[in-house]
């Protein structure tokens, strides 16, 4: 077969590299992918320089500095299909917690000599700057979800990424609801699927690292949290921790101070 393999690029912005590690964590499966895809740029895995165009670009991280703002535009121009991966790329990430205070305050709190820091005043998701074709949520992303997206694209199908509540996965796995049976706070009812109900399977509540589900009824869940005695500042943190740029989560969090 002389048909060239699709070229895949993996790019990193403000992030911890955890989502890229999820790709490397595919180990066995990545060999099957490598047979059908040319991994043309992936600094975490190879030293190949950035050149040419990409059929699919996976983008990790939020946009946090003026330099990144230029780089992301370049990625868009080089790419047919941009998939943003992870909570940082799609919701600002944990570093987005600084969005709730002034940038001077957070710089002063972190750096001994802040004059070298060049930063934007907020940590913002990729979609604020370029057109994103598909978002894969999570902190970090789920490797099986990523592989499924790649397999679907290779099969010529439009990739489907469900965004229903985590509860559906809990029930498909016969996991007993920790809210009902133990009065624990769980963000599952307003959080997007993808993890396969990882935390509830280990007897703890979901903490929303996959961001909001489709049409999350945040007010109803927050009022349930209040009735089981979750302190107000903790309710705020549940909504702000990972997806600090999601309008529904930001607004709900700000109602609990």
């Amino acid at each position: 077969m002389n048909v060239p393999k699709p070229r895949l690029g993996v790019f990193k912005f403000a992030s911890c590299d955890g989502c890229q590690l999820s790709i490397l964590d595919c180990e066995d499966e990545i060999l099957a992918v490598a047979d059908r895809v040319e991994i043309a740029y992936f600094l975490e895995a190879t030293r190949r320089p950035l050149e040419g165009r990409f059929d699919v670009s996976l983008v990790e991280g939020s946009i946090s500095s003026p330099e990144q703002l230029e780089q992301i535009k370049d990625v868009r121009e080089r790419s047919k299909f941009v998939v943003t991966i992870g909570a940082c790329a799609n919701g600002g990430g944990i570093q987005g917690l600084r969005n709730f205070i002034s940038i001077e305050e957070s710089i002063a709190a972190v750096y001994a000599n802040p004059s070298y820091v060049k930063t934007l005043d907020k940590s913002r998701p990729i979609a604020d700057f370029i057109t994103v074709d598909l978002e894969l949520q999570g902190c970090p992303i789920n490797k099986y979800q990523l592989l499924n997206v790649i397999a679907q694209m290779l099969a010529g199908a439009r990739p489907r990424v469900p965004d229903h509540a985590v509860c559906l996965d809990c029930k498909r796995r016969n996991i007993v609801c920790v809210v009902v049976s133990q009065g624990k706070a769980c963000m599952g009812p307003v959080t997007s699927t993808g993890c396969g109900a990882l935390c509830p399977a280990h007897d703890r509540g979901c903490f929303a690292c996959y961001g909001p589900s489709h049409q999350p009824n945040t007010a109803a869940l927050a009022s349930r949290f209040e009735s089981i005695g979750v302190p107000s500042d903790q309710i705020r943190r549940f909504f702000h921790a990972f997806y600090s740029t999601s309008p529904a989560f930001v607004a709900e969090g700000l109602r609990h101070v």
Partner: protein
Amino acid sequence: MNSSAAIAPVGETVVIEKPVLGSIIDRLWRDGYTVVGPTLAESAIVIDQVRAIDDLPIGWTDDQEAGTYRLRRRDDRAYFGYAVGPHSWKQFLFPPKTTLYSIEFRADSMTVKPNVDPVPSYAFLGVRSCDLHAIEIQDRVFLHGPYVDRQYQARREKALIVAVHCAVAASTCFCESTGTGPRAVRGFDLALTELESEFLVEIATPRGAAICDGIKSRPAAGSDLGAAARIVDKTRNSMKRSLNLNGLPDILYQNLEHPRWDQVAERCLSCTNCTMVCPTCFCHALEDVPSLDGASSEKIRQWDSCFNPDHAHMAGGNNRPDIRSRYRQWLTHKLASWVDQYGVSGCVGCGRCVTWCPVGIDITEEAAAIRGDQP
């Protein structure tokens, strides 16, 4: 009279000492059944494998309210002294995730292979009347229409059912009002009533009789039958909730724009929990899962829900675009159009949707409000 060696005929009722239930469980496993029944796990009484009577939640009960479930110690050693938990038997007959078929691609052809994985023979131990009715309803869905679901059929035909007449009603139970309990009347091979130190065993089918063959028992006396009837009556009279089904379909159809739908939509999380725990809900999603090497693909069926926004997504958009329309769809299907479709209501009064709703929305309250029984 010692009848321990006699074959108890179908239709007979016998009495066994409680530990003899252990011999029945052993016998079921020996005969090739996978025995599943109530057991303690994850802070609840769930349904899982029962190897011996010690696996049953002996001496435990549950306190249930809308949105709340708590385990509690009983002050006796009752074997079945609790109501239904988060699981139902649906998970065994209509599993949450199944491969329907796989496709293998070759250079110029493809082969479709149906899933022919062997189906386990389950023995369901401790099935309550509400759940027997739920199984009967799912039979109508999967077996009695123009298309028969082969996987469901295979599982269903193999399953042996040991029912238990309820000795306890949770505060969320309302089967008396829906005519689906608490006494199990049909659909079982054996039915147990838990007396103080013995079980009354009704032998309903040849399969049930075969399992009881040779076990240590005595014929039931009139006083045993009286005691058993009183237990179920007490359960019936202790039920706190009720759902008035009388004329309900028309009332719901006539109130599709009732303000109550807006009110419940403010509380509803659209999280799918009610539909997942419902023993009659059967909605599912089909998905093609291609292999990474591109050589094959699987058609997967998973439990899905009318509360999943994606479920009503079709060409042209989502025809149930908000929580109000999804809640209304669920309630009007369950209690109204279900009757048109299958000849019975889709609600068996088990109360699971009430207990396991994380915000405690109560189907009986919502239906009553639409009916106009409440302010």
